[in-house]
């Protein structure tokens, strides 16, 4: 709370009620950790009436996954009233339980994007804009963008989020691990093999044909690969095998690779595993390390 007190000259404008402020504080304080980059300011916050555009109180649409994008709740926060770039974060609902995120800030800046246990670094473009589609991990999804010692956060209702199961790998720096999903006995490079080279699209999921892969991060810092599968509306039965692969390269041979693996648990929460993998020695350069048991298979029963 000392961090907050020292920032009392800042102003916050909000388009949602007191509850959102409380939520925002809790979320961001939790993710602050020891990183001095991330701070948030809630002093002198003036709660405004609920944005009439918000549909947070409306019943969820009847056809999850096929809804038209709709803005739900967004928090606009002014970091420095006199700054040239006023930060703004907008979340929109997109098919396949995806959140279309638009962040407007200062140009060509590095920002940290946080959603649930997923945290990645990205870059705004020459117009100060960052656009990114992020799989919704919760029905009430909270997205935070941290930049230049500040943070802006927004929440969106994602009614179809619980139809999906996710697995993710998160890493720092250059990519070593690659996620591969083999759906219902698919062989390599076949229709049901989903990976960075064939990521497929959220539309595939809304049609019940299978999952898709989202890659987050620009490679400068933290990155992630997330495979999302519409377990709630699959037309298949059987298992999706989740394999993580790593090429032995001159850069990583003999080294330990660290990463974090996330997976939707049997009861719906997200389980986290630390990966501490010793790569083979350098005489094995060119070999492929396959990890079969990092993730549990996704098992689908016939609906």
């Amino acid at each position, binding site marked *: 709370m000392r961090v907050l007190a020292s920032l009392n000259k800042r102003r916050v404008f909000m388009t949602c009620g007191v509850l959102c402020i409380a939520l925002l504080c809790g979320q961001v304080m939790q993710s602050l950790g020891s990183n001095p980059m991330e701070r948030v300011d809630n002093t002198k916050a003036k709660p405004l009436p609920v944005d009439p555009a918000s549909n947070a109180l409306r019943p969820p649409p009847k056809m999850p996954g096929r809804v038209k994008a709709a803005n739900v709740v967004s928090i606009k926060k002014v970091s420095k009233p006199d700054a040239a770039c006023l930060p703004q974060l907008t979340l929109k609902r997109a098919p396949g339980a995806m959140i279309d995120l638009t962040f407007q800030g200062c140009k060509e800046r590095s920002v940290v994007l946080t959603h649930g246990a997923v945290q990645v670094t990205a870059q705004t473009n020459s117009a100060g804009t960052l656009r990114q589609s992020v799989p919704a991990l919760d029905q009430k999804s909270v997205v935070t963008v941290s930049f230049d010692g500040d943070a802006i956060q927004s929440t969106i209702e994602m009614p179809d989020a619980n139809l999906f199961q996710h697995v993710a790998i998160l890493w720092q720096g250059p990519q070593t691990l690659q996620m591969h999903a*083999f759906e*219902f*006995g698919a*062989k390599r490079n076949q229709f049901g093999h989903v990976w960075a080279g064939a990521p497929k699209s959220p539309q595939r999921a809304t049609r019940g044909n299978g999952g898709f892969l989202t890659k987050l991060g620009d490679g400068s810092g933290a990155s992630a690969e997330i495979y999302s599968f519409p377990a709630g509306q699959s037309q298949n039965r*059987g*298992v999706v*095998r989740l394999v993580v692969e790593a090429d032995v390269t001159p850069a990583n041979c003999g080294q330990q690779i660290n990463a974090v*693996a996330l997976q939707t648990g*049997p*009861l719906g929460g997200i*389980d*986290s*595993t*630390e*990966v*501490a*993998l*010793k790569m083979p020695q350098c005489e094995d350069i060119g070999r492929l*390390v*396959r*990890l*079969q*048991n*990092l993730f*549990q*298979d996704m*098992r689908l029963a016939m609906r």
Partner: protein
Amino acid sequence: MLHRLAIALISILFPLVALAGPIVLETHDGSITLEGELVSFDGELFRVETAHGTLTMDGGNVTCAGDGCPEPESLIAKARIAGPADIVHRLISPLLQAYAEKEGYIFRRVFRGDDATTWELSLSTGQLVAVIDGQVTDDETVLALLSAGDVDIAVGRTEAKTDAIQQDVFALDALVPVVAPDNPRAMVTLDQLQGLLGDGIDNWSRLAGPDLPVAIHLPEGKTDLLRKLQPSRRFASAQRHIDPSILSDAVTDDPAALGVVPYSSIGNTVPLVVSGACGLAIPATPDTIRAEDYPLTEPLFMHRIGVRQPKLIRNFVAFARSFEAQPVVRSTGYVDQAIGRIQFERQGDRLANAVLGAGDAPSAMKSVQEMIGALMRGQRLTLTFRFRDGSSELDPQSRSNLRRLSEAVNRGDFDGQELVFVGFSDGVGPAGGNLRLSKERARSVRGSVAKMLDGAPVALASEGFGEAMPMACDDTAWGRQVNRRVEVWVR
């Protein structure tokens, strides 16, 4: 040199010095606090001089505060668990996580590769309380490692043959013959299966299938069950797989493949239903595996050797085989040991078999009528007692059932009801002898259960109906073993 000696002396003396001093021991759940002078700590047990005399406390689940406490490192419960890849990663890991959640520990899993994982449990204060190393080995090696003292808990599908090893059944599985999804065959007779696995049928065209040579895929190691399939020469040329999910994938990819996989790893393959020569067939389902009506049921064992283990580790083993852990087992794709009930009406197939099997013999028909009269208002439990080949000794799954059933009765699950132990025999030999044998077996199981009860208001009865309700054909050893059983019914 002298300098080094001095350091060595100090490091030897230091723990002794440290032991003299006041300490406060508190269990992780805060239920017990003990204050006094530490007398000794042997790495496991604290002996503390208190106002009430010298008391002993297990170090496995306490925190120690005060000058007299031993090094924090020595309070961490440590264990090494080893077994097949699927069990270590898919079953032990979620069980440890569920145990940690139940006890309020923070769970951390560090994946070091397909053959090694470390789990850490700590208090909400961050203090580490347990480090468990998981190691992947095949089913046979693991028992050797346990005997050599290189692991503390061995998990696997092979029963230990020595009394020195303590074993608990903590989940169930079964071997299932499977084919690729594009293989048209759905059912084989036992003869055909043995022909496919043996020398007789080497091409699918002999079963009116495509002209493809049969490619056999089997799990690594020779479990008792694989032997039961009567391996022959071609078993030697079969492809062996250590990881059952890789075995399952190999079969999925090859329309010519015939695999034998654990039920928990069927994956995208298609199970073959095996019928006997008399036409009876029992598919592998969680219920038939729990009831051991499916003949290739395989219990999963947790083996330990007589060395005393830290309390936290013992508690985990107790949790893994407990009633509370069964939903976790189920969620991982293995078969749990929860006790289910099957309504009389849902057993039409079995009754039809009984009536058809009775044929024209009036005595047989009379015994079927008696059986229906006795059971028609009851429910069958998914827990059955079966015996080792040609003996009256219970098999491992049934011994686990004995404990499980008595625990459920003592918990009050059957209060005010009657449990009927119903014996059946195979149809080999004279009917009168079979009837007597089935009654004796039922009585003996009833007696074993009765000994383990603590006065719950439950009535126990036993009956026997000989060969009246066969579940499998009597022409094979495994069929006869399925038929020799004591079912448990609730009335």
